[in-house]
């Protein structure tokens, strides 16, 4: 039998600040949403909407993905993280860059502050990318998950690079095409290249693990990898050089790839030995269901259907919202309580397990708060999307308020876990460990 190695976990001081920053960002994001109701009446190129998008994409989603990935990379790739220090530096740059960029967009300062923010963010992506690639280089058993993760980081750097060019272009206007042209590229590289690929890569490892399932057939995942990347490369090349307008075909490739992933998840669910699915996993399945919304809408916005301009603008907004406030946020809201309590538990109790009765990770957060968080989130999301579609500001406001409630409940629960302290542990009464044949 081959002997195993010791744990590869990174320092908690690398991982946990990401969760704290992301939780605060989500509250800020939802509160900003409350004060941005008027911005949903027109085009998506609006300072408040750009602020919301970047707080969501960077402060909320990318921040928590960075943090959780430092913890999950060693699990998925079975090697140690290359450098904790690089990770901490990337955190400092990402957090500072996000704050500066958000303030810049809100006030529409397109000068130095925005340039500095964009440089900080791009440097942060480069450092993160270098850390991930160097970590992946140590991998002995390369799997499709590693393909997804490494490629997603390449797309993150590409997204950041386009973003940096656009930030400079605001002032110097050196790009050959109009700003919106690059915004579409920037947004889709980020959504499908960074978020989607990463989620598929990590999800394909974690979802079966959490369900105690071993789906043997990974053909769907391999197919998903090539279809999503193929669609993205063709889209980017066409967008930059050809402008043929075949975007719906590229979208179809990406959507087919998503289908391959969902088929894999379906298999994992079918073979699951764990039937009592907790709230975190339930929310994950809600997120996967919500993914269907942008999947449908991507065709609506790319097929150039004969739709009135006002409705088309609203559909564009719903498309973006369904990705960030829908799929990505729903997934994070659920997966946070699958990963964070475990990380805190491990650092708090690793020396006590086997000697004392310890709580379980699920005892570190409030299930009631999580349940209400999920309810407030889902109703809030539906209200927000319906409000935008119907151009009803009161309904948008209702959605924003409910999402803010969900965000506050989420942040309370996150900080309850982060601030957890080990209390009077009772030693095991070993004499009660009676003899008996377990087999």
């Amino acid at each position, binding site marked *: 039998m*081959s002997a195993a*190695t010791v744990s590869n976990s990174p320092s908690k001081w690398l991982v946990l600040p990401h969760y704290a920053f992301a939780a605060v960002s989500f509250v800020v994001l939802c509160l900003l949403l409350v004060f941005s109701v008027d911005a949903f009446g027109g085009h998506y190129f609006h300072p408040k909407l750009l602020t919301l998008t970047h707080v969501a994409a960077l402060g909320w989603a990318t921040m928590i993905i960075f943090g959780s990935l430092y*913890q999950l990379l060693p699990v998925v*790739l079975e090697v140690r993280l290359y450098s904790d220090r690089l990770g901490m530096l990337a955190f400092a740059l990402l957090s500072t860059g996000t704050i500066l960029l958000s303030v810049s967009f809100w006030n529409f300062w397109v000068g130095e502050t925005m340039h500095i923010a964009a440089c900080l963010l791009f440097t942060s992506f480069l450092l993160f990318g270098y850390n991930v690639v160097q970590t992946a280089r140590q991998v002995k058993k390369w799997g499709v998950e590693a393909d997804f993760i490494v490629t997603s980081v390449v797309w993150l750097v590409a997204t950041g690079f386009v973003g940096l060019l656009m930030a400079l272009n605001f002032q110097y206007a050196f790009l050959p095409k109009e700003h919106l042209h690059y915004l579409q590229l920037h947004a889709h590289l980020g959504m499908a290249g960074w978020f989607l690929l990463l989620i598929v890569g990590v999800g394909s*490892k974690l979802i079966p693990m959490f369900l105690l399932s071993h789906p043997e057939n990974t053909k769907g995942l391999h197919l998903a990898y090539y279809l999503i990347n193929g669609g993205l490369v063709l889209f980017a090349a066409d967008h930059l050089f050809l402008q043929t307008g075949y975007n719906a075909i590229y979208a179809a490739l990406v959507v087919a790839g998503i289908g391959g992933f969902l088929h894999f998840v379906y298999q994992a669910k079918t073979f699951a030995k764990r039937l009592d699915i907790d709230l975190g996993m339930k929310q994950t399945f809600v997120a996967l269901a919500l993914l269907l919304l942008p999947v449908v809408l991507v065709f609506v916005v790319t097929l150039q259907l004969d739709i009135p301009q006002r409705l088309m603008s609203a559909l564009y907004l719903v498309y973006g919202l369904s990705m960030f406030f829908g799929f990505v946020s729903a997934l994070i809201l659920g997966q946070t309580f699958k990963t964070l309590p475990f990380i805190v538990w*491990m650092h708090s109790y690793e020396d006590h*397990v086997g000697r004392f009765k310890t709580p379980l990770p699920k005892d570190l957060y409030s299930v009631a708060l999580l349940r209400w968080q999920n309810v407030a989130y889902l109703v809030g999301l539906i209200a927000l999307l319906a409000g935008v579609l119907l151009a009803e500001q009161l309904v948008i406001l209702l959605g924003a308020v409910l999402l803010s409630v969900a965000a506050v409940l989420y942040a309370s629960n996150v900080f309850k876990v982060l601030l957890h302290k080990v209390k009077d542990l009772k030693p095991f009464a070993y004499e009660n460990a009676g003899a008996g044949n377990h*087999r």
Partner: protein
Amino acid sequence: MKTQEQEIIDEAYEALKYIIDPEVGINIVDLGLVYKVKLNEEEEKLKVELTLTTPGCPMSGTITTAARQMLDKRFPNLEIDIELVWLPQWTPEMISEEGMRLLGNT
């Protein structure tokens, strides 16, 4: 009638049941993570081979230390040797009937 060796092995399994997989919430024995418990009476050594649900699991150090501490306390006169192994690879089929019941599969 059980031999003393078998009694010790059974006791070791029972002691290891105190260690709960924190994610799944059931003990490592019923989860099928303990592959072998062997007593070498001449050397007064108790050897345990156990695995994890996935090789990258961050619990490797915690579970092996916990198993050692648990058995050290339970059998202070025996030398405890814990070995983490990856072969055969753990699969959900290794979960015991009791484990399946605890997971909600009746």
